[in-house]
């Protein structure tokens, strides 16, 4: 099976998120970068499918040249090829992103390479969380799509994808080619192996620059929500705090 997985470079924010002085971006001077856990699981799922039935996994990102770092991390997890849809660093909205991704999928088929059988997305990007790029790509390409997927099995000629809705398991049957967006928990991603890392370091990354387009949803600015809570009241240190803790639990009405 030929599989493409789409990942997005996002800042690795830790205990506190800080916005730049102009209010336009997350301050990344102190942080590294990563991809969403959903997307890492999408890569793992693709690698497992290809290990079982052959084919290849291509990881694709739309982002600045530095996003090649995330592609190499995904290559180290077992993807074979990587493609960078290079931007000048400004933010792309979901409509423009989906158009560029659909363009890349068509371009591969037009170029005579084996077309993708499966396009895997994260359920939502970690930073902007638009919950839509995969679905827009599916519509652009006329492919069936299911989202929020946490279980995936192969069927005759297709896939059975599952998720939970209000405590009930739902499943969706899709013929191939298809689009799926997956959630963390669908598998437990492996740690990159040493040979994987070495291969990733040397791998060639294809790239070109798609055309940016303006869209109707425009960011005015970012802000950190008002912190409703203040610093915690310290009940005590070590086991000396236990009586105060028991009293608190009693007050909250949670003791047996």
């Amino acid at each position, binding site marked *: 099976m030929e599989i493409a997985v789409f990942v997005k470079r996002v800042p690795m924010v830790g205990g506190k998120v800080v916005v730049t002085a102009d209010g336009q971006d997350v301050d990344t001077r102190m942080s590294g970068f990563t991809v969403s856990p959903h997307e890492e699981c999408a890569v793992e799922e693709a690698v497992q499918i290809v290990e079982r039935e052959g084919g290849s996994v291509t990881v694709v990102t739309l982002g600045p040249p530095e996003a090649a770092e995330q592609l190499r991390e995904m290559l180290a997890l077992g993807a074979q090829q990587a493609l960078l849809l290079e931007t000048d660093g400004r933010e792309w909205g979901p409509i423009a992103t989906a158009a560029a991704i659909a363009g890349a999928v068509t371009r591969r088929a037009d170029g005579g390479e084996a077309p993708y059988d499966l396009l895997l997305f994260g359920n939502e990007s970690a*930073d902007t969380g638009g919950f839509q790029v995969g679905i827009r790509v599916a519509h652009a390409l006329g492919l069936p799509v299911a989202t929020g997927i946490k279980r995936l099995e192969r069927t005759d000629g297709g896939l059975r994808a599952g998720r939970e809705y209000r405590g009930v398991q739902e499943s969706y049957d899709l013929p191939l080619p298809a689009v799926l967006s997956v959630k963390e928990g669908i598998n437990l991603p492996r740690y990159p192996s040493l040979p994987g890392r070495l291969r990733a370091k040397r791998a060639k990354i294809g790239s070109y620059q798609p055309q940016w387009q303006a869209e109707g949803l425009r960011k005015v600015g970012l802000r950190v929500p008002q912190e409703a809570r203040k610093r915690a009241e310290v009940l005590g240190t070590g086991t000396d705090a236990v009586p105060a803790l028991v009293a608190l639990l009693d007050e909250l009405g949670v003791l047996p």
Partner: protein
Amino acid sequence: MTVLCLIEQGDGGAAADASLRALTLARTLAESAGGEVAAVLFAGDTADLPVSELAAFGVRDIYAVQAGDGYAPAAWARGLAELVVAAAAAGVAAAATDRGSEVLAHLGAITGQPVAANCIAARWSSPGDCELVRHRWAGSLLEDAVLEATLTLLTVASDAVPAQPAGQPGSAVVHSFSPDLAGTDLQVHATESAERGTGVSLATARVVVGGGRGVGGPEGFEVLEELAGLLGGTLGVSRVVTSQGWRPHRQQVGQTGTKISAELYLACGISGAIQHMAGCLTAKHIVAVNTDPDAPIIAHADYAVIGDLSQVIPALVAAIRERA
């Protein structure tokens, strides 16, 4: 200026709480342009619609859309797209649930319109121009944005928007609506299994005892589970714990795990990364047990115990058992 709001139904046909919250935001949006909110349900049977409940939220018109049996996201979106035309609606809103997010994204793709996901406030400043506030990083960051579109499409971060009935409750009329579906709209549809989940659900548990890297390994969770059992609650964990394989992912609290709504979250050995806090800031009370008095979670918690959880928690369990 009518705003359509997708209503999901819970047990016994009642409107889901998340949908009532979305309806509250949709009503505010409609009122910002002197319009009204209308409810849309995908229900084959119009007999068990929550009519009076929706009327109490200011709904006058309820559309019962027939779009096949069960759930098919593209068909629901097609039904909404046609209803937008039939009811001359200027906007469509849905709770940012799995279904709401998915249906609105399909609707955006079908109509070629942008979709603003996870909004917590929205108003029209002029026709077609919507000023809104939405979540980024699952609510750890807010974005002020402008949505310029011929049709305003948004999902609502429902845990951040309380459900408020309308000041003037009225009565509502049910209209049946049968859209023309395209051939492929029903291709991807849900098949539901009969089994239901069992046990205390993490999302709705009254007490969650949380464990993070500070628990030290898979064995360390036994005493946390014992405590959770004593408090009638359940265990929740951080991503470090699930990615190490110490506990299954369904127990993960946070941005890419579950959002909890507990009365008490007792977070042990968890640093309080924003992606973890995104899943527990809706807990009423947070108590942190951490060796580090400067851990970020201390800034979010109501109470803290500074200490080693491997001593504090067994002592707490013993004290509770002694009392009982």
